[in-house]
């Protein structure tokens, strides 16, 4: 293919000494393929990093370094606690919210205690999270919306 391209070049061009020009002419017949490849790469980049609808929300602030699942569970505990009537302040801690929830929903205490321990030991004690911790979180995350509904019914 390369040889045939060279064959088709005018004799004036064939004698050109400039390397860049030679290469440009050499790859000219392949330009359509190169353009296609470049377009595909750009589209892939755009889809992956810029307009990805599944992209995870980036955490801000000092907690950014912690596991996303921990942040989801803390957010969920906070939502349920606030719905249940917890007066949230910026200085409120997860332990305070869990204590409040345990008093409000005593049946949840058994599930919340290991979750609180794993959150605190990971954030403050540097302990790695285990599969057991993740399954505890998942279980709670399925229960949490129901607790919010229970509270809203009570309110009505």
């Amino acid at each position: 293919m390369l040889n045939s391209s060279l064959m088709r070049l005018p004799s004036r061009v064939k004698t050109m000494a400039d390397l860049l020009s030679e290469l440009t002419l050499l790859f000219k017949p392949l330009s359509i393929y190169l353009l296609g490849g470049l377009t595909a790469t750009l589209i892939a980049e755009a889809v992956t990093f810029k307009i990805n609808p599944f992209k995870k929300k980036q955490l801000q602030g000092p907690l950014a370094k912690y596991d996303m699942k921990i942040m989801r569970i803390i957010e969920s505990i906070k939502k349920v606690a606030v719905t249940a009537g917890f007066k949230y302040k910026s200085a409120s801690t997860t332990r305070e919210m869990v204590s409040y929830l345990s008093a409000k929903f005593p049946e949840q205490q058994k599930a919340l205690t290991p979750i609180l321990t794993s959150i605190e030991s990971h954030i403050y004690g540097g302990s790695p999270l285990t599969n057991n911790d993740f399954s505890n979180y998942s279980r709670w995350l399925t229960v949490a919306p129901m607790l919010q509904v229970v509270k809203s019914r009570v309110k009505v």
Partner: protein
Amino acid sequence: MVDSGSDASGSQKQGESLIEDIRSISEIKKITEAIESQVGSYVVGWEGITKSLIIALLTGGHVLLEGVPGTAKTYLAKLFSDSLSLTFKRIQSTPDLMPADITGSHIFNPKSMEFEFRPGPIFANVVLMDEINRAPPKTQAALLECMQETQVTVDGITSRLQQPFMVIATKNPIEFAGTYQMPVAQLDRFMSRLIMNYPPRGAWVEVLKRKNDRGEVVNVKPLVKASALISARELIQEKVKVSDDILDQITELVRSTRKLPQAVLGASATAAVSLLMASKGYAATVGGRDYVIRDDVKAVVFDTLNHRLMLRQEGPSTPSEEYGLVRVRGIIEQTVNAVTS
């Protein structure tokens, strides 16, 4: 005036199940609960105070108990000390108490024709300085070196004090006649100031019931040996982890007290160290944890900072002690909220 003292060797004979060594944080929590339960069977309504005394003992701190007369400050300090197999000395502060009455002095021995050092009551594990503000500042200053460096210098000779060493001082905030204001440097040596005002009505009834049933009989057994307390202290120092977030929070909390418009003087660097150590102690003794959480800092912040803030006078021209405390509490709460946001 040195009132009374008890010796560890004598106490050890009484306690058969004395704990000699502590090897884990969970053991520290168990011991704390045992001491608290024993002291709580004689003194009603001061469980938190006993806990704070244990925290200070296990983190190398000293405690100032402040409250109106008749709130069992001295009794509590004595019971606490009796629950530990440690040497205990009590100093009753008076306006004519001299530094040598605390540290000891060289006395001429006519037999050996030499001056011999007679140690003062400071040479004990637990020293109760009763009504500390009745001693003049010169005498209070004799405690500075002991409390900060766990050593005492008399006539140029420095002697190490026994370990563990702890000063428990009591102070009555109501009476002013024959008392001296405590110097700021002296106050800063105390890890925490614990406020003991009148307990709630239920506790009063319980006190009367127990007095009626038991009278004056006190049978407190020593539960822990000095060696176990030293091991516990080392465990807390070495094993209880403090994350960078917590260190930042403590630093910011203490620094922000110096920027308060209401404060003439904010908390010092010593206050930050005290807050850190008290938080570590709280994590181990109350939580049984080997890491500090934000709740630990919040739990000890008032006791650690309340005596270190000097506020500008506001409101009543002669503010009561209670008014002052309520104000300090409010300011500390505001500071905590501002820092953790």
